[in-house]
């Protein structure tokens, strides 16, 4: 219905179809993260393991050129197999650096919006709550996929290029799928974990401490309880160990703890589901009652 026309010239541009309504939120989040002090340096540092593993793949195909570096039996040296990938994806340094990335890119994702009352502006626009949350999660997906999925697939590609044949992929045809599934699981878990914590406070520093603290303390508590009770079941308290357990299964390796890996998977999925439910309840247009 036309309300009134009194000389007002309507905008005659074309309204774009909003197929990816979450994308402006993601782009804004990525841009803001790169603006943060030291982030570029930190991110470059996080890519260091990928570089080392890549060099390892190169050396593995040119062992004769590097034989001067190896003493004794060369057969086990730099054997690129699923264990090599598992070590990359589940090593403590990479997981720790991911947490550091989350501290920088994820702590303020929702807490800054809460602090600045920005939710009411978002939700006064053609944007669903799911789009908002997905847009925020996609910021984390962007950074963590660069550290997991992308290097994982590049490793395989480089292995094939350096080897000059398809022997590797013929031996482990399931490996690309393992990389995709593990990267997605790891990234989804960290995305929901970070968004959950980001939605509990308005202060990004407080949220950053929570993201870091919960990860670290979950491992410390495991160490303490294991020291007292000598039961590996306490490893289920540790976020890191749960991820490593599932990672080992997906890469067809022995699990580091003598605990059914299914428990670890259930804990990871449970945290994801609870985080999703909490976020759905928590994120809404803010109502202030005076």
């Amino acid at each position, binding site marked *: 219905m036309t309300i*009134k026309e009194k000389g007002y010239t309507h905008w005659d541009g074309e309204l774009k179809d909003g197929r990816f309504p979450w994308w402006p939120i993601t782009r804004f989040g990525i841009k803001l993260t790169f603006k943060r002090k030291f982030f570029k340096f930190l991110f470059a540092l996080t890519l260091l393991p990928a570089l080392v593993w890549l060099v390892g793949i190169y050396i593995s195909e040119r062992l004769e050129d590097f034989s001067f570096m190896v003493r004794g039996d060369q057969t086990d040296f730099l054997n690129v197999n699923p264990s090599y990938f598992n070590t990359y994806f589940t090593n403590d340094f990479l997981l720790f650096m991911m947490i550091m990335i989350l501290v920088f890119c994820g702590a303020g994702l929702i807490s800054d919006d809460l602090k*600045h009352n920005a939710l009411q502006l978002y939700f006064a626009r053609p944007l669903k709550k799911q789009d908002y949350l997905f847009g925020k999660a996609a910021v984390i997906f962007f950074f963590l996929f660069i550290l997991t999925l992308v290097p994982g697939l590049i490793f395989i590609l480089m292995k094939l290029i350096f080897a000059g044949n398809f022997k590797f992929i013929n031996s482990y045809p399931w490996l690309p799928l393992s990389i995709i599934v593990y990267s997605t699981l790891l990234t989804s878990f960290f995305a929901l974990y970070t968004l959950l914590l980001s939605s509990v406070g308005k202060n990004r520093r407080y949220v950053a401490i929570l993201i870091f603290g919960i990860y670290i303390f979950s491992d410390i508590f495991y160490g303490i309880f294991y020291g007292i009770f000598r039961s590996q079941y306490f490893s289920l308290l540790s976020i890191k160990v749960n991820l490593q357990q599932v990672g080992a299964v997906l890469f067809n390796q022995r699990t580091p703890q003598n605990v059914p890996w299914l428990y670890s998977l259930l804990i990871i999925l449970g945290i994801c589901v609870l985080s999703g439910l909490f976020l759905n309840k928590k994120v809404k247009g803010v109502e202030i*009652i005076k």
Partner: protein
Amino acid sequence: MTAVIQTQNLSKWYGNVLGLSDVTLQIEPGITGILGPNGAGKSTFLKLITGQIKPNIGRVMIHGQNVWNNYAMFAQIGFCPEQDSFYEELTGWQFLTNLLKLHHFSPEDINAKAEIALDIVELTKDKDRVIRSYSRGMRQRLKVGQAIAHDPNIIILDEPLNGLDPLGRRKIIRLIKEYKGEGRMIVVSSHVLPEIEAMTNRIILIHQGKVFAQGDIHYIRDLIETHPHIVSIKCSQSRLLAEKFIGYDYVLKVHFDLQKKSLLVETNNRDKFFSLLPSLFIDNNIEVEEITSPDDNLQAVFDYLIGK
């Protein structure tokens, strides 16, 4: 005229707190003022009609369509919230363009629309300054700017004049009136009657979550006229002035506030009383320091109207 916004038995509560209760009304094109004291339910009402919160009972229709979960409808609505909602480290330009991106306009349109909006709210010169450095008035204008930038047909402004100096108020009021002239529908809330009066003569009174009265401002004015008003006058010769007031039948009471050193006069005809004042001051050579109406606020009027 056909109503653009219709609400039916609209109710919202937060736990035990009643936000809005059984509001059924129709809002027509033009400017409509939502008037009510703090905590009356104005913001709740505005958030319900912008589809930001879900009613517990009832529904809101805009152009005959239910608003709740109707995201396409939000493209037609511009909402200016009461609280500041800024990323302080962004510039005014970045703030506006980032919000426009959520409407899926092309990059050229985003720039064009942001330019127009900043021009309308007179912030073009300051568009590249970070919001942290903006004055209160500039922030309010930027908030109004983000509400109008995407060319909405319906503009909802929640207390847009809050905390502004007189010049800032005048600018926003002029802007709102100009927008009405362009054929938009504007709903504006305030707890200050003269602010609403300066923008529109069509108002809805909300009190304790209920629509108390709806209609022309003159109707409300008539209600208020029957309500005795207290006027405080700080002047050089308050006793002489008190003596002069006694002779007028619309002056009901006169007493002295020793603490504030002012004269408090109660009248049941505010217009006559205020038109009398200049001549009294001039004829008796009285120097006036300040004239205020301590109860010239909505809460006092509401208290009076509901018989408190």
